[in-house]
């Protein structure tokens, strides 16, 4: 991963074409959710060691936001999917 990312739209491209935002697991709460839920969403991270899901954007390509599922110790990538597809799931 740290060298190449396989964009589902553009194919395998160098990592420099992509921008990383961060953890893709927190889901934006409804505006009616509790203060705790919002604090959790904006500030708290499980920060696991191992399998993680991250938001990356192919900024120098299709400009789609992607969910990259990978191992943050071995840097192996398990899957790269379009984030919008993820949301529908």
């Amino acid at each position, binding site marked *: 991963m740290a060298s*190449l990312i396989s964009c589902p739209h553009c194919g395998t491209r160098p990592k420099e074409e992509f921008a990383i935002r961060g953890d893709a697991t927190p889901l934006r709460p409804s505006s009616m959710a509790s203060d705790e839920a919002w604090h959790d969403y904006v500030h708290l991270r499980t920060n696991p060691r191992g399998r993680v899901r991250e938001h990356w954007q192919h900024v120098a390509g299709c400009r789609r936001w992607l969910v990259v599922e990978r191992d943050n110790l071995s840097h192996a990538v398990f899957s790269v999917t379009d984030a919008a597809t993820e949301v529908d799931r």
Partner: protein
Amino acid sequence: MTAYRLPAGGLIDRSHTLAFSFDGKSLSGHAGDTLASALLANDRLLVGRSFKYHRPRGIVTAGPSEPNALVTVGSGVRRDPNTKATVAELYDGLVATSQNRWPSLAFDIGAVNGLMARFLSAGFYYKTFMWPAAFWEKVYEPLIRRAAGLGRTDLSPDPDSYEKSWAHCDLLVVGSGPAGLAAALVAARSGLRVILAEQDFALGGTLLSETTRLDGEAPYIFARRVLDELQNSPNVTLLPRTTVFGWYDDNVFGALERVQKHGAAVDAVKPVERLWRIVAKHAILASGAEERPLVFGGNDRPGVMTASAAATYANRFGVAAGKAVAIFTNGASGYRTARDLAAQGIGIAALIDSRPDAAEAAPAGVRLIRGGSIIDTRGGAGLRGIVADRGGFEDLIACDAVAMSGGWSPVIHLACQRGGRPVWSDALQAFLAPDVGAGLVPAGAAAGQYRLSACFEDGARKAADIVEALGRQAAGFQAPVVGEEPDPSFTALWHVPGAKSKAFVDFQNDVHLGDLGLAVREGFGHVEHAKRYTTGGMATDQGKLGNINAIGILAAMRGVSPAEVGTTTFRPFYTPVSFGALAGTSVGGHAMPVRRSPLHGWAARNGATFIEAGLWYRSSWFAKGEEKTWRESVDREVRSVRENAGLCDVSTLGKIEVFGPDAAEFLNRLYCNPLLKLPVGKARYGLMLREDGMVFDDGTVSRLGEAHFLITTTTAMAGGVLSHMEFAAQVLWPQLRVRFLSVSDQWAQMSIAGPKARVILQSIVEDDISHAAFPFLAAREVRLKGNLKGRLFRISFSGELAYELAVPAGYGEAVADALMRAGLPHGMCAYGVEALNVLRIEKGHVTHAELDGRVTPDDAGLGHMMGTGKADFIGKRLSNRFGLTAADRAQLVGLKALEADQEMRAGAHLLKDGAKPSTINDQGWVSSACFSPTLRMPIALAFLKSGRERYGEKIVVWDRLRGVETMAEVCHPVFVDPDNSKLTA
């Protein structure tokens, strides 16, 4: 000291003589020499000084692990310090200089450190130089710094260029020795795309220095045949002079090709070095094995080298390391070296084998000492003899070189760069590469297969496995018939007992046996602690030669196995890589791309001074006539806008066009202010927040149609806002039917501001833009004379009657020129971002100088914009936090200097009059400041604690950094036209 060129032999071109110099002395060598072999051929054994004790040092190896023979190659601006003479290809006119010595290599004052060695034990500096405290920076540290370091650089600019390339292949073979050639050949014949990288300038690896015959011929002939076939295979790329230095994620390899480091003349059209990023489906690590030095007393004296180096110099370069070479070995390799040297007619003083029960026989006439060792060496800066221990008896043996063989270590560096730890093999007494999967497979000596026959077989078999893994049929490879090969076994000898003088483990950093003992005694026995405490393995060779012995010694001292001691971490780079090659072409003026506004030419023609603004060059001011300072120009431009009119290029603002039935809903969630009811044909100022409630960016939102919006962003945040919107549309609310794209580059946009703006503008616009027809905040398409369509927005950053006119980028300059002509009779001028800044400060408008990422809308006086009635928008929920609504937050205010000649500058802090400066007493800071030509006084925008309650207060504008303190009055941040009468005129 009697190294010399052999009368015949070697792979050098004796018909081609090359002149070079070392420390000013003119010498000569041959094509095919390295600098090291040429120095040896000229009997120059003393080539460097060690790091700590400045001990005289010679050449130890014939390859990239060299710890001692570091020299500066080149002169003037083309000097390369710390170049390993053992890999530097000799060329005509090469200028080499020795390092870390003063005044000369032969007589080095620094060698006095050697006499003090007992005081300079490992880590001594942690224990002293503490008193008096002030002496560290003044006395001790400068002394240490001067004594330390190796080569010199004056940091003068580099005249050469570098480049980078990507390469893709099915198989990367690292190393062109027997295993690498076999692997490459099988893969090539099987149709794989193959890259064969070799750090040496000549391909062939050990086959170039090997004497065991292949198919009855010298091994280099076999190598040449294979290379010919590879060379003629269109699917094979041979990369000599290319070191694979790093193994990165996804099987991407970093490699450095030395394109023009082997000649005095540099072709400026070509790079001197090329950085390769090689994406390899598979790779075979055929990097061979490293021969270990032996740790005996006086083992650092010039003339002591590894046995394989002595053999390589003799066989490949036709150079004898000495006239009487003593060989010290713990295994069969020493016998092979003895045989090779003897075959070349080189005298052998003795063959000393540490194994009492060794079975091998020495070549005829060579004195063999079984169960013996070297415990000391004699001589000055050159070897004259050794003291051999023979079962308790000491023998002084005259010799002028020592060839030592301490066994073999597979070169597994690359395989351990991604977290895998080396695995100890008791059988091989060496660390082997961990299993790192099918991406990178060691083969041959790198996998512990030391015999030539095994190397061929291993390389071919592992390549065949890869071919089959890629779904192809593996082609055959007929291994050559290998002549008689000695048994590669050895008995580990981590250090020689009974050393009579310092026995060095890490040559360059002067780490000796005693240092490791001290480290263990003091509790630094962990391999990482020992490294860091003694600096062993931290020199430019990164412990390639010495670490294995250090591990064995630590193991012995701690009474454990080397497996338990383990290794330190292998990290890139395998061998050092220049900044230049890693940086490539994106440096200096090309560090970042340049963006120019479509009105750049117009601005230049009108005399603009440009300034970097992110990637853009923006026009700062337009000097006229007699104006000598930027202030004169800016003041005039401001007055002109306030009194007549001005034209400013605002094309760099981000412009994003938004479409779709849900476009309004989408924007309503992105901006903190309500936008659903924005009428078609109208613009509105908008604020975007981050989810944490802080202002993210500001700009305008114009509704061009029911389902069509155009938004602007600040210049700096254009990219960030687009990404943010894409995230919102694709991830947060993919159900919203909205599409948008950046049109920043499609439009030239200019602001026409000032009381006469409408008159001037009307003269080029067909449509009626009277106040009634085109009121404040109107935004719609207009037709310009000549039938060009543009977009007109009646918005104002300056506080004047103002418009922003956007036209297709290609028409920008023509329209700007037309406007300038139309404005001429009305006194219109071109104005730049400096004047724009003054105008907006006078009007109390904020920019990113105010909106610095820590500011809420309320802090900026824009709290009223928050659409508190909206169900949701980004930043809504966290805006309510206690800290964001606290009464003592710093709020935007204006400041007027009490004296017109007083200075106020952004970055100053605010203090209550008479208060002592302290962090607690700090009342805020000045975010923007200028001299206001309109008010004729210095004014500023500032953030002041509870500022809005403090209008009228006299406050100290505290700029101690620049030694300025100014009294100012706190006021409302809008200095000009507070009731907006100009905007709606």
